[in-house]
C-alpha cells in the first residue's frame, strides 16, 4: 500500500520522556510523523505506545501524576508547553479510543457535540450538514440516517466505533489519533474501520496504536516499534516488516515474544 503523503513533517517529537510519579514510562522518544500518512505504533502491552499517543493531544493532562518532558512540535507549534491552548489543540487533533465511547445521547448529538462546543455552525442547517458529512465520511450515514435521534449507545460495537470516528472528524481535525480502535471489535467491523482509515488519510494525518501487526502492515505507511518505553525502530512499514534493522523488532514481528 503506497502512501499519498506530501512528505512534509506534521508532528516532530524530540527526546520525549514521560513519568508517572517516579516511574518513567517513555525514554527519549524521537520520531517524525508525516502529513497525510498513517503512522502505526506497535509493541507489547505496557511498552508506552499509548502514552506517546496521548502526548500528542495532551490527554495525559487528565492524569494528575503524569509529567511529560521534551519537545513535541506540530507545524512549529510546541505542544508540550504550559502556554498551549489545549482546547484549540484538541480541536485540531481528534482521538478515537480503544473501547467505543459514544456519549449516552442521540446519534445526532454525539456528532454535533464538537461543532457545538467550538461554535462551528452558525445555523441548524449548517450543523445538520456537518453531521451528515461526518457520518458519511465515517461510512455510517447509510446505516443511521433514519434514526439520528436514537441513543448512540444502542448501536452495535462496530457502528459505535464508527460513530466515535464521525464524532472525531466532525471538527475537521488535521490529525486523528487512534488508540487500538479495533481491539474491541469483530473481524468484519475491523475490516470496515481499516477501509475507513485508508479513506481518511486523504484528508487527515493518522497515528494508530495497534496490537495487531497485520493491521499495522495493512493500514500504515510508517511504523514505530516500542519496547519497554523506548522507541526501538521507526521507519517505512514495508521495511520494518520485511527487513528490520533491529533484532528485537525482528523477534517481535515474527512472533518470538510479545
Amino acid at each position: 500500500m503506497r502512501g499519498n503523503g506530501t512528505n512534509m513533517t506534521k508532528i516532530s517529537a524530540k527526546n520525549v520522556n514521560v513519568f508517572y510519579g517516579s516511574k518513567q514510562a517513555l525514554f527519549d522518544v524521537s520520531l517524525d510523523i508525516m502529513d497525510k500518512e498513517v503512522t502505526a505504533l506497535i509493541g507489547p502491552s505496557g511498552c508506552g505506545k499509548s502514552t506517546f499517543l496521548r502526548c500528542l493531544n495532551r490527554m495525559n493532562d487528565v492524569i494528575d501524576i503524569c509529567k511529560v518532558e521534551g519537545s513535541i512540535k506540530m507545524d512549529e507549534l510546541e505542544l508540550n508547553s504550559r502556554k498551549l491552548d489545549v482546547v484549540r489543540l484538541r480541536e485540531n487533533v481528534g482521538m478515537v479510543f480503544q473501547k467505543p465511547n459514544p456519549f449516552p445521547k442521540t446519534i445526532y448529538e454525539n456528532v454535533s457535540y464538537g461543532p457545538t462546543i467550538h461554535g462551528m455552525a452558525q445555523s441548524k442547517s449548517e450543523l445538520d450538514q456537518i453531521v451528515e458529512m461526518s457520518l458519511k465520511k465515517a461510512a455510517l450515514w447509510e446505516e443511521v440516517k433514519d434514526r439520528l435521534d436514537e441513543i448512540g449507545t444502542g448501536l452495535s460495537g462496530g457502528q459505535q466505533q464508527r460513530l466515535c470516528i464521525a464524532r472525531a472528524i466532525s471538527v475537521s481535525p488535521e490529525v486523528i489519533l487512534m488508540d487500538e480502535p479495533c481491539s474491541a471489535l469483530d473481524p468484519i467491523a475491523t475490516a470496515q474501520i481499516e477501509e475507513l482509515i485508508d479513506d481518511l488519510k486523504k484528508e487527515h494525518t493518522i497515528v494508530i496504536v495497534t496490537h495487531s501487526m497485520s493491521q499495522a502492515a495493512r493500514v500504515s505507511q510508517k511504523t514505530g516499534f516500542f519496547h519497554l518505553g523506548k522507541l526501538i525502530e521507526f521507519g517505512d512499514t514495508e521495511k520494518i516488516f520485511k527487513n528490520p534493522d533491529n533484532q528485537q523488532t525482528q523477534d517481535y514481528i515474527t512472533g518470538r515474544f510479545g
Partner: protein
Amino acid sequence: MNLVLISLILLLGFSSYYFGRKKATIIQSSQRLTALPKFYGYYLAIWCAAPALIIFSLWSVFEPTIVKNFILADYLDQNLTKNELQLIYTKVKALALGTYTGDINNFLDNSAGKYIQIKNMANNAKIVIVLAALILSLSYAYQSIKKNNRMREPVEIFLKWVLFTASLAAVLVTIGIVFSLLFEAIRFFQSVRIFDFIFGTHWYPAKTFVRDGQPDPELMKDAFGAVPLFAGTFFIAFIAMCVAIPVGLLSGIYLAEYATRKVRKYAKPIIEILAGIPTVVYGFFAALTVGPFVKEIGNSLGLEVSSESALAAGAVMGVMIIPFISSLSDDVISAVPQNLRDGSYAMGATKSETIKKVIFPAALPGIVGSILLAVSRAVGETMIVVMASGLAANLTANPLESTSTITAQIVVILIGDQQFGDPKTQAAFALGISLFVVTLFLNVIALTVVKKYREKYE
C-alpha cells in the same frame, strides 16, 4: 427451669457435633465417607437440637392460651364479657403467684389451685416431650450416620431453611407493623370520615376531648382535617430541599470532579459528619439559634416573624440533608465511566462543558434518585420540626409563620396521657399510615430510577 432445659439441649447439641465427627472417622476406616467428617458432626448436632428446640418454642407459645382456656372453662356459664374474663384470669394468675392483694373468694381460690396444678403438669409434660423428641431424633440421626447416608445435602438444606426463617421473620415484622397501623387507622376512620380527614382544612384534635362519653360528631367533623399537616410537611420539606439540593449537588460535583485526592480525603468525611449529628441536636440548634436569628433579621426588615418559623426548621433540615445528597451524587457522578470524560476532553471540551453536557446528563437518573430519597427523609424527619416549627397546625404558605407537620402532630398526640380507643389517639395511626404511604411511594420511585441508571452502565 426453661433456661436449664435450653442449656441442656444446646449442650447435647454441641457434644453430638464432636460425637458425630468422631463416628465419621471410625466409619472412614472401613468405607469411603459421603462428606467431610465435620458434616457428620453438623448433621448429628442439628438433629439433636433442632427438633427439640422447635417443639420447645411451639409449646411455650401455645401453653398460656391452653392453660387460660382450662381455667376460664369454669366461668363460661356466668355470661361474662371478654374483658371481665380477662380480668378474672389476671386475678387468678396473681393469686397463684402470691402477688394478689384484692378480695379473695372461694371460687378464685379454687381456680388458683387449679392453675398451679395445670401449670406444674404442663411443665413436666414439656420436659418429657422435649427430651423424648430429642432422643428419638438423635437416635434416628445416629442410625443414618451408621448407614453412612449422604450427609452434605441435609446440612445444606437445613442452613437454607435457617436463612429463610430469618428473612421470613423480617418480612413478617414489616407486615405486622403495617397491619397494626392499618387496623388502628380503620378504627379511626369509623369515627371520622375519610373525606374529612383528607380534605379537611382544620386540624385541632384537642377540642374533641370530652370527659367520659362520646364526643359530639359535629365537632369530630371539623377537628381532623389533615390538609394543614400535609401542607406543612411538604412546605418544610420544600424549604429543606431548596437548601440541600443546590449545596449538596454542587459540593457533590466538586468532590467528584474538581477536588484533588487530598482535598477529597479530608472534605468527604467532614461533610459526612453532618449526617452523624443526632437530629435532636439539629432540633435545638434550629430552635435556639436559627429561629431567633431569623426572627431578628425579619424584625429588622420590618417583617413579623414568629420565633418558631417554617423557615428556620426547613433551613436546618436542609443542612441535615446536605451530606445525603452530596455523598450520593458524588457516588453516581464518580460512577460515570472515565472513557466518557476522555471522549469529551478529546473533543476539546472544557471541564465545565464536559460536566454540563456529558457527565451530568449521564448521572441524572442517579441524582434524581438520591434527591427523592432525601425528600422522603425530609418528610419523615421529626425532631427538628417538633422543636423548631411550632405545633399549631396553621395552613399557611408564609415561611415566617409557624406551621406543623405530620410527624410533629403524631408526637403531640402520643406524648403524655392518652386514652386508647379515643379518636384523638387513633388519629396518630391515620397520620402514620399516610406518612408511610407517601414515603413508600417516594422510595419506590427513587429505587426504580436508580436501578434503571445502574442497568445502563453495568
